[in-house]
């Protein structure tokens, strides 16, 4: 997704000179094509994420469309109050890109695990959050939102090459994308773990369960209407996300079910236990937190047994 981002920004920047890129000294071997094509529109601000957001806020106020870039934890939580008091309170078109969503930087350890960024940023009303499930959807999402009036946070995975079957690069703000039509149970997910969820749905066929897969790719506006429709059509929903259980997709679904008195039963799969200081590959981390294909299948089989 990082390379898809840079390629898309190269194309957009050639058409619109308001587009700038700022990095907090990250993106080595990724950002160079933009730097080389637009040297006067590329700023490495150093390891200074708060200042990066402050500078971007000023640039946006001056009429530019700045994209800031860092690893998701440093892009979102370190400058959290700067995001709030800058582009959010001033309603300015700053685009904040965080890479390594979820456990994308698995081997780098917990300091690099972006498992709270979406939950934290969802509290900032007025900030749109975009969480693409694969590279084609990331491209569509950037093209759909780069010129929107308010601030946007993009949670991008690092290197996922797999594409989500049935998604076909579809994206629309405030909407849910259904990639697999089933009945009885819906697997609701966001981010690059969607490929793992799709594998689980295929695996569930062997158990006679034909699951729907629904992909949520954005918050604010939260896709409440689409979720209501999807949830109302199923008895069970299992939400799957590489994000803390409080404040992410599962929390949104719980809120929709409770607020609209839906009969759909929720089984949230998310990060429920604190990081313990160990590290491992993304797949290893998914397994550790019960988010890998086998764990999803097991959770669905158990969930549908409940009345």
């Amino acid at each position: 997704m990082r390379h898809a981002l840079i390629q898309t920004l190269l194309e957009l920047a050639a058409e619109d000179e308001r587009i700038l890129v700022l990095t907090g000294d990250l993106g080595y071997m990724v950002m160079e094509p933009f730097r080389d094509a637009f040297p006067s529109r590329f700023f490495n601000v150093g390891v200074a994420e708060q200042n990066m957001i402050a500078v971007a806020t000023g640039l946006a106020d001056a009429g530019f469309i700045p994209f800031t870039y860092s690893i998701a934890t440093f892009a979102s939580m370190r400058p959290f109050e700067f995001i709030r008091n800058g582009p959010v309170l001033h309603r300015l078109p700053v685009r904040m890109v965080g890479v390594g969503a979820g456990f994308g930087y698995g081997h780098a350890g917990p300091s690099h695990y972006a498992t709270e960024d979406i939950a934290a940023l969802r509290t900032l009303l007025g900030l749109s959050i975009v969480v693409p499930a694969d590279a084609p959807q990331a491209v569509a999402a950037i093209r759909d939102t780069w010129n929107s009036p308010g601030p946007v946070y993009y949670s991008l995975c690092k290197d996922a090459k797999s594409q989500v079957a049935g998604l076909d690069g579809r994206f629309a703000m405030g909407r849910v994308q259904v990639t697999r039509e089933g009945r009885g149970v819906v697997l609701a997910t966001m981010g690059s773990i969607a490929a793992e969820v799709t594998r689980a749905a295929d695996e569930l066929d062997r158990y006679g369960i034909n699951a729907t897969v629904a992909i949520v790719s954005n918050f604010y506006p939260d896709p409440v209407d689409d979720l209501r429709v999807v949830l109302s059509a199923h008895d069970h929903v299992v939400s799957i996300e590489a994000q803390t259980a409080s404040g992410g997709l599962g929390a949104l679904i719980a809120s929709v079910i409770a607020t609209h008195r839906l009969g759909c039963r929720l089984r949230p799969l998310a990060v429920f236990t604190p990081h313990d200081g160990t590290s491992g590959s993304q797949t290893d981390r998914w397994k550790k937190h019960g988010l890998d294909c086998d764990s999803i299948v097991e959770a669905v089989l158990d969930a549908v047994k409940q009345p």
Partner: protein
Amino acid sequence: MFASHHRLGNLRAVLDCNGQQAFGLTREVMDPGDMAHRWRAFGWETDEVDGHSMEALSAALSAPGAAAAPPKMIIAHTKFGRGVSYMERGEPLSQPHLARHRINWHYLPMSDSEFDLAMKDLDGQ
């Protein structure tokens, strides 16, 4: 500022100063200028040493501190990739499928032959 304000004279900190950032040399990315001067401006004492010299580091760390005195920053000048020949020379990994970025070895796995060379360099020291 906190440490100097409270005169934490028994506090030592070590700054590994290798002049390298993720995207390039520190002086090219965001030049902090004279690092010792910066720390002294915040009320710290400074000691500049060869960060690869155990004797120099040990001496700087073991020098007696005083209560109610300025804290001390030990600025340890180091070389990025020290001890591995191709890293010290700023040469990229030579695997044909990798782009030849100068410090790609900082980010990417080395091949078996690059590993063997690195170990040979380190064993020879």
